[in-house]
Structures are given as C-alpha cells and as structure tokens.
C-alpha cells in the first residue's frame, strides 16, 4: 500500500472500514445483532421491561429440529408476512419475538397486529378489499369475518392439481395455510376452548367443574391437576372403569379433549422427559394424555366392551409391567384399534401422574405477561430457560449461537457489501478511462482496485461466517437444499475471484465476483420466501432419509455446487469480455492486453468447472448406485449436471481445436450460464424424477428472463460483426448500382 499518496490511502481506508462495518458491526438497520454478540453470550435480564431476549432463547422443537423460540418467531413471520417483523395499527414495526409473545400469551392483542401479507388483488377482492385503499398487510381480526370465504376458496383450489393452479388459487391456499398456522400457534400452549354449543352436554357429564376457572384458579395447571386427581381415583379402583361411571366418562371426555389439542400445536414446547430413551419432545396434550396411536376416526371401529375390559386389565398392572405391555401391544397389534387406544388410555391414566413443570412455567409466563408483571415474567423466563435447556441436553448446545446468528443477518450484510464492491470496481474503470483519455497515469484506479480486492476479502469472511454458522447449527455440510446451494454458489465464485484478483489486479474478477455474490444471495433470499419449498420458513430443514448422509452431501453436493459456481464465473467473465469488446469497438479503439487476460481466465476457470462438474456428477452417480441401485438413470437433475459437463468439455475442445477465439470462447461461456441455470432450477420445475423434492415453479419467469438476457448478450457480441457485414454489403450494393458492369446492360 506504500505506493498510494496519503489522500488516496485515506479514501482506501475509509472505504475498507465502511465495508467492514456493513459486514460485522452493530447497526439496527442491518441486523439486531453484531459480531460482538457472539462473543458476549446472553445479556443479563433487564429490570424495567420484559426480558424478551431471554424468552427468545428458550428451546423448543419445530420442524424436527431443536431451536430457540427466536427462530420459530422469525420463521413463522417470514411465512406469514415475508418479513421478520409484524406491524401495529400505526404501521410501526413490531419485532418478531414481541409479536410471538403476544400470539402465545395475549392472543387478543396479537389479533390486532398486522401479521398477514396479502398482495393478490383477487384474494383481496374475496374479502371486499382493495390494494390501493386497504394496503396489503392485515391483522387476524380483520380477516376473521372472512374465514369462511377463504376456507372455501382454498378447498376448491385444492381440488386442482398443483401444476395447474392459477395464481389466485395458489394465493388462496397460501393464505389459508397461513391462517391455520397462526391459529395453531395461538393454541400451542393451551388446548382450544370447547365450543359453547356443547356446554349443556358438558354440564350433564359434570366436567364443567374440572375446567379452568379464571375466577378461582391461578392458572390452567389447576385444571390439569384436577384431571390427574380424577385418573388417580380410577387407578385406586380400576372397577370404576365401566360404561356410565361418572369418573370414567369425565376421563374419556378429557382424554379426547387433550388428544385433539395435539393437532392444534404448531411446535413442541416441552423438552424430553428425564428418563425417555427416545428423547421425544412433547406438546401440552401429549404431556397430559400421550399420543393417539391411530387417527381418531379409527375410534369408531373399536369394540366398547373389549376396550373397557382391556383397559381395566391394563390399569391394574404395575407401572413397569404396564410399560412392557404397552410396548408389546404397539408392536404386535398395529391393526387393532381397541387394543391400541386402550394402551393410550392406560398410559394417560396410570403412567402420566404428574403435570410437567414446564407447562406450569409457561402458564406463569402468560399470566405475568398479561398482568404486565415484569419481575415475575423475567424470573420465570430464567427458570424456564434453565429447566428446558437442561432437559433438552445436547440439542441445546447451539441455541445461543443460533439466536445471535438470527439477528446478525450475515447474508443480508454481505449482499450490501457486494454491491459496494461492484460500485468501487466500476469507479476504478471510469477513473482508468478518464486518466487514459487525458494521458495521466491511473493511480486512483489502482487504489480503487486494491480497495475492491481488500473488501472482497472482508466480505468473504462475513459470507464464510454465515455458511459456517449454518453448518455449526445444522451439523451438516454447507449445501443441504436449494437455498443453501445459492449461498454456496455465490461463495465459491467470490472465493475464486478473490484468488484471481490476487494475481491479476484488474478489478474484473472483483466486479464479476460481487455480481455473482450479490445475485446468488438475492436468489437465496427469494428462495427462503417460497413457501412451497420452505413451508416452515426455516431454511435449515431436516434431510429426508435418502439425503441423510453427511459423506455424500459433503462430497457430491459440495463438488457439484462448486462446478455450478465456477461455470457461472466463467460465464460472467464472458459477459465482462463482451462489454469490454463492445466498449472498445464503440470508442473505435483496439482491444488491449485485457482481451488475452480474459480469455485465459475464462479458459482456466472452465478447466476448474470441468474438473468439479465431472467429478461431482460421477460422484452423484456413485451415490445413486448406493441408494437407488443404478449409477445413471437419466433423471432430470442428473441430465442437467451432465449438460454442464458436456458444455464445459465443449468449450475446452473448441479452444484446443482453434475453432473458437476469444469472442467465441466468451459466448460459449455465456451460454454456459443458461445451461447451469437450467440444471440448477429448470430441472426442478419439470416436477419429474427422483430429485424433484426441490420442486418449485414460481421462479419460472425469472429463469426465462435470465435466459433471454444471456441470449441478448450473446447477440450483442456479434452485433459489431453483423453491422460491419451489413455496411460492407451496402457498400458493395452502392458500388454495383453506381458503376453497373457493362456486360449486364445487354440489348
């Protein structure tokens, strides 16, 4: 850096610091957490306000993964509103965790918050609303009167096959699912109230006195305790298990009631019980009465007499014998609803004797939240955190990291910094052109290129941190789904550009790397919003059985993704060349040294692409041989990968044979962008084949637009040649017309 003058050095340092700040440091608009939060650990609870930070760190299980409540809050809002915040009536932002606390503890407040994004005019029309007048953000309270219409439209839309649904149908289904998700969230911590129509029936069997009474009871655990007391009576005297016994009919009612509540839970709040070997997380209903062994419709097929006698016999067993019997029944009598339901009833009556303390703590949280009792709320949060973390065991080790990671938004920060790099690189060329034209040396341009290079290194750190953060939380290799492939493709290309720029400080690699980096992060962001790919809003989803192999994910998937990434890079360098060539032609200058440099860059990077795409594809074949029994099955995704391999091979051979020169090479590389985009997304849109679990169709228009843009650039590359050809033709024509050859004017 010695060669720069103090002023230039100052600018360089300023820009570098600005980039670093965007990448790592605290600023509310960038993310609620900064790099420091990872080092600091959880902050101490505030005394004046609710300790929502502590609340957001409580572990729960959703989508098969143990995560902090913070992730659940952000992800559900992402599904409902495509944002990580809600809006209040004055359109002020409400942070996800605050919204979530209200949904769980004070639903009547949450119902007033604008939680749902509806931007389809016909779906709005369904409710008599207009985009221009009513906006696109709605609260549950606003939607509630229209639930009937929404449900019937969604049901009707569901009759159409997914590929044939129009945008109204898709949006109606999405909205319906969102409403369902919201209602499930509200009911996760407590069973939904019994409809008032049936109160007479309830009176008759005498269950009303068991129900929670806000006047007398401090919280719902009182109801659960009374239920336990009821089952205790039957354990004492199993002969009470009979038709018409008042105790037994009450128990049957509550077993049904709590079992139904299981279906209304969006996540599992209760950590595994201490001696559960399977480490299963529970919903409130499951903790009270266990899980229904079959769909509840199967209850109609039970034989009542046999059910009663089996249950009575089971309840009379000692707890240990009962556990063994239940296990045998569930293994050997899978088709026998009578025995299966008796096993659930016996478990609920005899084995589940306590009310889980976690339920009590959540109840306390709710009560203190509604009463605005900050001290009690904060004390309960810390108790709950301690208890739940302890019971969650191993699974909770990444919780605090994940909470900070959620707020850090490494990819949002990186994408902003990439834009900055691109601007700096462009400035460097402008400056170079300017100093060239006035005949001065281009020191400023050099400084800007150095700056872009250093910044690329810094962003790469933040991008890498983002990737490693995901790997640490998931315990998986970097690429596990379409979303993470986008993150990784950008990362790979930028890394390669950084290395190239080290040797060739031209700003080209920095600029192209930053375009690919920002572009792929933008694609990733849009993928995270696609509810068909990502129904829970969590991009760290669980891997289905065939993919559940870290070895193959780490080898085949990573290598093939690097192949995508390098092919894109070669393509973007091709684009850079086309623009350089057009610029030079327009200005009427000869192409300089850059032409050869770009050519050898494209060539060199395509060598990498071929290496990675070929090895990746063959490894994929070997994985397929391991899991599906054939090396190659002409599956759509496999074919896509093969297309990339062939295209890269074609580019190299075209250069070897001398058929393609710089421009030819550049256009072949640009077409490689189309091939790669097809392989990456296009094959998933076909919806055929074994890889179709990443099915998505929303990006079809974007893909077509991308393909057209690439074709247009290829056409531009040949435009000067075409123009020259036309001019030449015209000249010839004029020549012929002005001097007609004498022998043609025959008589």
């Amino acid at each position, binding site marked *: 850096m010695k060669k720069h003058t103090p002023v230039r050095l100052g600018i360089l340092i300023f820009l570098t610091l600005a980039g670093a700040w965007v990448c790592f440091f605290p600023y509310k608009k960038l993310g609620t957490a900064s790099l420091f939060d990872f080092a600091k650990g959880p902050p101490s609870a505030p005394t004046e306000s609710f300790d929502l930070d502590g609340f957001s760190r409580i572990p729960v299980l959703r*989508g098969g993964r143990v995560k902090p409540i913070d992730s659940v809050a952000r992800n559900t809002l992402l599904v409902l509103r495509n944002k990580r915040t809600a809006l209040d009536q004055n359109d002020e932002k409400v942070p996800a965790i605050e919204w979530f606390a209200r949904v769980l503890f004070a639903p009547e407040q949450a119902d007033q918050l604008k939680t749902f994004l509806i931007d389809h005019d016909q779906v709005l029309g369904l409710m008599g609303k207009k985009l221009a007048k009513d906006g696109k953000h709605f609260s549950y309270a606003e939607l509630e009167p229209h639930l009937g219409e929404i449900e019937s439209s969604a049901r009707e839309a569901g009759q159409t096959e997914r590929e044939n649904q129009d945008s109204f149908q898709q949006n109606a289904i999405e909205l319906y699912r969102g409403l369902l998700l919201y209602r499930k969230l509200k009911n996760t911590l407590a069973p939904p109230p019994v409809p008032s129509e049936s109160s007479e029936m309830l009176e008759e069997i005498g269950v009303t006195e068991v129900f929670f009474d806000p006047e007398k009871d401090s919280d719902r655990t009182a109801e659960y305790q009374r239920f336990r007391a009821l089952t205790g009576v039957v354990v004492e005297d199993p002969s009470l298990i009979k038709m018409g016994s008042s105790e037994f009919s009450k128990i049957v009612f509550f077993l049904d009631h709590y079992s139904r509540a299981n279906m209304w839970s969006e996540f599992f709040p209760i950590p595994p019980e201490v001696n559960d070997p399977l480490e299963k997380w529970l919903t409130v209903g499951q903790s009270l009465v266990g899980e229904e062994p079959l769909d509840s419709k199967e209850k109609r097929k039970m034989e009542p007499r046999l059910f009663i006698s089996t249950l009575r016999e089971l309840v009379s067993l000692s707890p240990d014998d009962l556990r063994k019997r239940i296990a045998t029944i569930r293994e050997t009598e899978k088709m026998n609803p009578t025995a299966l339901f008796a096993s659930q009833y016996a478990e609920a009556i005899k084995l589940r004797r306590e009310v889980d303390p976690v339920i009590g703590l959540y109840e306390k949280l709710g009560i203190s939240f509604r009463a605005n009792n900050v001290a009690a709320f904060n004390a309960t949060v810390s108790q709950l955190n301690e208890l739940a973390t302890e019971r969650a065991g191993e699974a909770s080790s990444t919780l605090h990291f994940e909470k900070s990671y959620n707020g850090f938004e490494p990819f949002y920060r990186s994408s902003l910094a990439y834009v900055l790099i691109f601007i700096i690189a462009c400035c460097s060329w402008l400056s170079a052109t300017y100093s060239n034209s006035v005949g001065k040396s281009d020191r400023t341009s050099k400084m800007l290129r150095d700056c872009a290079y250093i910044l690329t290194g810094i962003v790469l750190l933040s991008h890498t941190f983002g990737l490693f953060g995901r790997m640490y939380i998931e315990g998986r290799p970097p690429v596990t789904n379409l979303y993470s492939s986008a993150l990784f493709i950008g990362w790979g290309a930028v890394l390669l550009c950084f290395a190239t720029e080290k040797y060739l400080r031209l700003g080209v690699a920095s600029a192209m790397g930053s375009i690919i980096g920002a572009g792929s992060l933008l694609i990733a962001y849009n993928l995270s919003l696609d509810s068909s790919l990502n129904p829970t809003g969590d991009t760290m989803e669980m891997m289905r059985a065939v993919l559940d192999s870290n070895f193959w994910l780490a080898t085949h998937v990573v290598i093939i993704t690097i192949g995508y990434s390098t092919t894109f890079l070669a393509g973007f360098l091709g684009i850079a060349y086309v623009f350089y060539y057009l610029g030079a032609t327009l200005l009427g200058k000869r192409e300089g040294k850059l032409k050869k440099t770009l050519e050898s860059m494209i060539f*060199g990077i395509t060598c990498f692409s071929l290496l990675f795409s070929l090895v990746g594809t063959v490894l994929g074949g070997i*994985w397929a041989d391991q899991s599906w029994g054939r090396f*190659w099955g002409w599956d759509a995704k496999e074919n896509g990968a*093969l297309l990339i391999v062939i295209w890269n091979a074609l580019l190299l051979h075209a250069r070897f044979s001398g058929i393609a020169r710089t421009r030819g090479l550049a256009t072949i590389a640009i077409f490689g962008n189309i091939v790669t985009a097809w392989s990456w997304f296009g094959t998933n849109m076909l919806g055929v084949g074994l890889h179709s679990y990443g099915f998505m169709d929303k990006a079809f228009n974007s893909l077509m637009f991308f393909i057209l843009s690439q074709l247009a650039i290829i056409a531009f590359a040949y435009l000067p040649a075409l123009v020259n050809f036309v001019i030449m033709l015209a000249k010839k024509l004029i020549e012929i017309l002005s001097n007609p050859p004498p022998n043609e004017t025959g008589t």
Partner: protein
Amino acid sequence: MSTESKTKKGQSTLAKRKALFPWLVPLASLRLTLTLLSLSMVLIFIATLEQVEIGIRGAQAKYFESLFGIWHYPIQFWGGEYLNSIPIPIPGGWLLGGLLIMNLTAAYLIRFQWTMKKFGIQLIHLGIIMLLGGQLVTQAIQEESRMQINKGESSNYIERFHGVELALIDVTDPKQETVVSIPQELLEEGGSISSEDLPFRVSVKSFGSNCDFNLVGSKDKRVGVSKEVDQGVGFSANLSIKPKSEDYSSEAMNFGYLVFELTDATGSLGTWLTLSHPAGNHWWKESPKLAGLAFQPIRHKGKLWGLTLRSKREYLPYSIELLGIENEFYQGTETPFNFESDVLINMDGNEGRRALVYMNTPLRHEGKTFYQYQMNKAADYTVFQVIRNPSWLVPYISCIVVSIGLLWQFGFHLVRFLRKNSLQKA
C-alpha cells in the same frame, strides 16, 4: 494443442501412428467431437423435456436406448400449434454414444501424444471411454427386480418390474411344486405352445402388456377378447378387458392380460383369462372376486394345476427372512429419516447371515444388490429393489482414472499460469 509443447518423441510416434491408420484421420477429428457433444446436449435436453410427457422409462426407450427418436415441438409451448406437427429427428443415445467411443478411440490412436506431459489427457479420455462403455453395457444387461417380504416370513424369489410370464404350477404334491413358465416373448409371438412337462397345449388367443378391466356382471356385457372366456375367474367374475398401450411413466400401473385356450389329446379344456398385477399377484387377494387371479386351479388327469400370469420370476439359491422393519420420521414432520429392514439370509446348509438394509446402505449378496425400496409399517412388509449389474464397479474405477487425469493436467496448467504471472511481476 499448442505446437510448442510437443516433444520430439511424442511427435515421432504420432507421425508413425498416423501413417499406420490413415483411414482413422477423419474419425479422430476434433470437429466431429464438437459436433457429437453439441448433438448430445440436444438429445439430453429434449429427452429431459419429454420425460414430463412419457416418463423417464419412456424417454429412455425412445431416445437414449435407440439410434434416433422423432420429436415434436410441445404443443403447450409458445407457437406450439404450428410447430407441433413437424417431426424432428433427434440422434439417439446408441448412435451418439457409439460414435463418441469411436471418435475417442481413434483420437487415442492417431491424435494423442503419448508423452508424460499429456498423460493426464490420456487418462481423462480413457476414463470417459470406460464410463461410456460401462453405461452401454449396463443399459444392455442390467436387470431390475423387486422382492416383497412380510415380517416374520421369508422369500426365495425376485420379480421383474417389467415383463410377465404365464406360470403353470403342478401342486399335486404339497411338498414339491413343479413350475412350467412361458416367458413374455413366447406369449407375444402367439400361436400354440407345448412342452414335455405339460400335459396340455397352450394356445394364445390374445396377449398384451396393459389393459383396463372391470367386472360387468353378465357374460353379454363382456367385450372383445374376453367374450370367449368360459373358464376360471374371467368367466365366474365376468371380467371384461379392454387392451391399452403400455404406460412408461414412473408411477405406471400396467396390468398384463392373457386369453388362452388349453387343449389336450381329447380336445379343448376351455378358454381362460389371466391378469398380472403390476405390484405382484398377491395384491389380487385384496379384492375377493379377483382373488383367484393369483392362482386359478384346473384338475387334469388326477393332478391339480394352478395358472397365473405373473411378473417374471427368478428363484434364488437362498432365501431372505424379514426380522423387523423401522420407519422413523423427524418429530413433528412428515420427513422420514430412516427406512430400515432387518433381514436374515438363509443359505442351504450354512448358518444364516444377518443384515441391515437402509437408505444408502444396500445389501450386496452373490452378485445381486438389494435396496430398500418401499415399506409399510402398518401392514409390516418391506419391498426391496433387486439389481444385478455385473459392471457396477466400472464407474467407480473410471471416476478415479478421470479424476487423476484432470488433476494431473490442470495441475500442469495452474503451475504454469502462476509461474508466468510471478515472472511478469518480477
């Protein structure tokens, strides 16, 4: 290939080789390679698009396992109503694959320099030839079958996914079954079939690999070939069938049918109808009226025979017993994370061998590979996909060869590139 990098030794043998096989020169041309590669892209792209319409198996048969296929521009695409009617020939997999192998081999002989510097190039292309050749062999000889086992039971045969056979089983002796099976190829030829082991002749009246069938209630409502049936389930249940062309899609259910007459020295024994169930004939037992299709009895000269049209079977010299199955899901999701079958392989005279078959971990035994394919936890059965592919090792070896070659070659380039740059800087 830059001329400067040629070494004298490589060049001299190159000239000699060229003189030796002058007729190979056009076949070894790089332009031919480029053309073939471009055509392969067209083939693969179009065949992938076609999978939406005709399924993977259909596209495979039409394009990849043929010399050429005729393609029509899809009608639902832009301008489809005008372009759809134009037939476009697309070169097929056999043609392009074969030509590529020839092109590569010829290049090997007369274009490649046999020097250490180009050793990488040679390795890469050797690996590619192996891959291509291996794939051609695999497509020609690989056999796919399935094996269904109920929990606690064992099975000693596998059934092909495609292709049927008419089995005539002599079950007179409960201890020893005698099976005579007539393969699909013979049934397709039609005519009259006899065998030393059969006391009667089988005359094929109609055979097809797919049909629609329904129970029509009375004889008069039966249509087409099914009218003539006067014996067995086809007669008693009044089955009417309508022939249909075979469906190649991946979720296809092809019900093969066969109408045939049995005759012996005394004359006709009646006309029979049999249907094959695509998932195995035990599925007929699910519907009471058709249960007989799994086994239609006929008494003949004191012997009891059973007739059935079933998926082509292969008996194994060992049997596999299903001890248990496991199907686990991530909690609170519908995403499975494990399908697992616990099996015991029983061989004659030997102690059994226990094995766990789960995703990404198949069981390889005596040249066959058993993959976890389907599973039903409630009904306690598992289905394996069974594959015999003697050339399964080829891709593994070629992968290694190609990788070494690529690393070798690009290593050379990278080192040269870096050296050149550091020289320029200095």
